[in-house]
């Protein structure tokens, strides 16, 4: 609740809305106390007085009634009616939605068909029909507006309820012996409530508009009673001769609705957890770069791709997550280098930093260089980066279902990859795409090229993604956990394919994974990451057979190996540190059984040539 207020207070537009609304509410609260004339007292002699004349602050209307008095009383009425309509629609709609969404099946089916039926009307037709049946009147208009908006709430809430009802904690509650009513009220409702509040706060303004509209048409409040809509409706006849009688209530409606909308949007944003974490911001075309020192643009390297002290961080609010804290790594031509680590170790962020694909905001590259054949990519202008992406350095990502565009045929996605870099005809690109699909061993490639991603299995989709990465014969492929989302038998197929392809084509691979088994089978060299840094590096055989860093050694021991039968497993006590509060010195020291006071006092360097370790008490001598 306090974070909610804090977030709301940070939103300037919402504060403005709240202030305007506050003034209006204050005015209508004190209205009965103000020395105002009777809003309904007619005085034909005083017709159409201009504002600020003869003691009428806002002038008078066509019957000589005081506009200020009518405005304030009318505002009171309009606000009350709008609020009541929103409450009724929200409560009834939410109740229907929760029941339909939770119970599902036939109940859901019947309710939702009825809702669809109501939504098949343009809403005003339904409102008009209801008013026609009940007769004109403010209360009837309120019912009509509420009834017309029930389907909107019901549908919205049902959607959310369905997603919550399928969460595992609801199953857990059932197994805890809770009944339906209790689950609905204690498990579902508290999670749906924010959505209902959001929907209500963003629609109150709309409801006020709608009731005002019905009154404007003469179907809402009846003379002499004034609400804002009927004031405007009555003033319309004299629009040209006495515009102030229209402008006064019209501006008031505008002010109320606008302030309610601004406040409602503020409430929505403050309640939406995604906005809080900045997750709803749009990632830019390339990661922001903010380096204190600019390394030379060119350097001599043997490696095709080399990372030099690369640093990438995420800035969320006042927190700084140092996801990559100075990573140096070289990949030689034709080499496959594994980058292994647990979740949160920064391995994926390292991989994405290479071509500026870290989502930014919140990601920022704050230091170091990434060199492709010696040329720095971090400082490169976007145009150059774009020209190299997919052409010289290609990516394969984890989950092929979400990484392929769902609405384009796989063939179109493949030809696009070729045609953004090469001026060739559509037909030639198509032929090349077929060839690529055959290369990744997709049976019946010529027919499959017309498929959409959802029509393919996970393994086939990942083959398409690999074909796409190969499209322009890149020098380096960066594979970010390409088999993690796949089943083990399919994973073996994909690994075999990658291994064959890289040997045939001599392409270099940076392979990101958390699986030692995969590294052992595929990679020439391996680097182990922990808390944003490389802690050990060497040839695969050296690192796996004789790990030098205590973390590597103990991590390998944690992995159960097939064929050893039933046994006790090794664990590493504690948790990896959060990268926004890294300990001093070695990040692994708090979990390390060998740690001494020295480990936590100063920065520990990655030492050695070829075979490297970041530890002052290594398990193996690497010098």
């Amino acid at each position: 609740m306090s974070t909610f207020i804090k977030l709301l207070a940070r939103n300037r537009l919402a504060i403005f809305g709240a202030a305007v609304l506050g003034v209006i509410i204050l005015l209508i609260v004190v209205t009965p106390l103000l020395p105002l004339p009777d809003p309904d007292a007619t005085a034909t002699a005083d017709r159409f007085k201009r504002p600020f004349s003869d003691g009428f602050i806002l002038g008078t209307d066509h019957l000589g009634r005081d506009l200020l008095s009518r405005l304030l009383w009318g505002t009171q009425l309009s606000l009350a009616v709008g609020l009541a309509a929103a409450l009724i629609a929200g409560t009834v709609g939410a109740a229907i939605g929760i029941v339909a969404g939770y119970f599902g099946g036939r109940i859901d089916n019947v309710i939702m068909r009825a809702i669809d039926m109501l939504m098949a009307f343009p809403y005003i037709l339904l409102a008009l029909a209801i008013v026609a049946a009940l007769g004109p009147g403010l209360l009837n208009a309120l019912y009509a507006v509420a009834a017309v908006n029930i389907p909107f709430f019901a549908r919205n809430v049902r959607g959310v309820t369905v997603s919550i009802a399928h969460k595992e904690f609801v199953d857990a509650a059932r197994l805890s012996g809770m009944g339906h009513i209790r689950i609905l009220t204690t498990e579902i409702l508290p999670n749906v409530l924010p959505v209902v509040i959001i929907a209500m706060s963003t629609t109150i303004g709309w409801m006020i508009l709608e009731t005002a509209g019905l009154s404007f048409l003469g179907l809402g409040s009846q003379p002499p009673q004034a609400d804002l809509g009927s004031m405007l409706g009555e003033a319309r006849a004299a629009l040209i001769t006495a515009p102030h009688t229209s402008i006064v209530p019209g501006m008031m409606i505008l002010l109320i609705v606008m302030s309610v909308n601004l406040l409602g949007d503020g409430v929505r944003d403050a309640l939406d957890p995604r906005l809080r974490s900045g997750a709803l911001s749009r990632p830019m075309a390339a990661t922001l770069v903010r380096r204190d020192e600019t390394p030379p643009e060119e350097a001599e390297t043997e490696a095709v791709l080399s990372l030099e002290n690369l640093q990438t961080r995420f800035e969320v609010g006042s927190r700084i997550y140092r996801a990559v804290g100075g990573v140096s790594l070289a990949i030689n031509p034709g080499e496959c280098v594994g980058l292994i680590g647990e979740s949160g170790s920064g391995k994926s962020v390292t991989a994405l930093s290479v071509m500026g694909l870290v989502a930014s905001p919140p990601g920022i590259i704050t230091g170091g260089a990434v060199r492709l054949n010696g040329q720095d990519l971090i400082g490169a202008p976007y145009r150059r980066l774009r020209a190299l992406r997919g052409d010289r350095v290609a990516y394969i990502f984890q989950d092929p279902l979400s990484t392929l565009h769902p609405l384009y045929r796989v063939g179109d996605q493949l030809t696009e990859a070729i045609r953004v870099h090469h001026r060739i005809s559509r037909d030639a690109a198509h032929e090349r795409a077929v060839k690529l699909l055959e290369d990744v061993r997709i049976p019946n490639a010529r027919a499959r090229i017309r498929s959409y991603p959802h029509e393919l299995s996970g393994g086939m989709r990942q083959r398409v993604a690999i074909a796409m990465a190969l499209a322009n014969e890149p020098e380096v492929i960066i594979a970010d956990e390409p088999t993690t989302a796949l089943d083990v038998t399919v994973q073996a197929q994909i690994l075999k394919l990658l291994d064959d392809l890289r040997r045939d084509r001599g392409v270099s691979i940076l392979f990101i994974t958390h699986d030692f088994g995969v590294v052992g089978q595929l990679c020439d060299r391996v680097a182990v990451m922990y808390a944003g840094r490389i802690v050990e590096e060497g040839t695969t055989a050296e690192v796996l057979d004789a790990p030098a860093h205590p973390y590597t050694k103990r991590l390998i021991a944690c992995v159960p190996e097939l064929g050893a039968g039933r046994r006790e497993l090794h664990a590493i006590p504690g948790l990896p540190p959060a990268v926004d509060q890294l300990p001093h010195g070695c990040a692994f020291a708090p979990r390390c059984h060998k740690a001494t006071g020295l480990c936590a006092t100063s920065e520990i360097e990655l030492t050695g040539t070829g075979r490297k370790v970041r530890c002052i008490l290594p398990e193996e001598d690497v010098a």
Partner: protein
Amino acid sequence: MGGYILKRLVSAVPVLLGITVIVFAIMSLIPGDPATAILGSYATPENVEKLNRDLGLDKPLVQQYFIWIGNMLQGDFGRSFALNRPVLDEVLDRFSATLVLAGAAFILCAVLGIIAGVISAARQYGWADRAITVAVILGISIPSFFLGMMMILFFAVRLKWLPVSGMYAIYGGGDLPDLLRHLAMPAIALSLVATGVVARLSRAAMLEVLRQDFIRTARAKGVGEGRVIWGHALRAAMVSIIPVLGIQAGFVLSGAVYIEIVFQWPGVGRMLVDAILKRDLLLVQGGVVFVAACYVFFNIVVDVAQSLLDPRIRT
């Protein structure tokens, strides 16, 4: 594809039936009998009874419903007593005028709303985004009927650029330029709220899509930013924008009622309000069913457009 269209058309039948049931049920809630309303309160009981019999109102409700449906299927929507003319003729005349107004407003709101939403998302937190956000807030907060009145005051009365009201000039009008001059203000006033809503939802949809993995894939392939935004991202965002357009079409049709009154546009909305105030119930009933049915068919078009865009729906 043909199969999908056919399936959607067939599924519209129960919806249409449901609409007639709802309308009929609401109308039968009306206290008093239409005959008294038609003949006035001074009518003799014999005359009332005779008229009730002529109108079939002495029969049970269910039977009345089926008679009404049967007649409508034959194109007989009954007769408007206030206008003394067949309901269907009146509705068709008026609906064509509404279609011109609402159609123009709908196209405006779809095109401008999507463009504004995409630009706003692509330049998130930039000045264009801020300007559009403020404009959208104003747009969805201003009552269309008030906006219409202010436009009349300013553009017609003060600047005398455009005609105050009506669909055609009374003397010498009737051609397309004349229609467009009359259409400009009401169409813009009508589209404003919907444009705001479309812009805001397009922005949200674009922001959602731009975070997706397949956008990163497109960038990783080296696709240029223009194509990423207006191609990959907008296409995926359209999946959630198109249903919004369908709903907005209903809002535009609804808003037309106010605009038609403000601008004296001879459309079906104004006809309905007049009919309600005169208690011309057959005209209300027929008009509501007709417009609702048109809306149902429009939504089928929306669904078909959606399925053309999204291959996952078709299967």
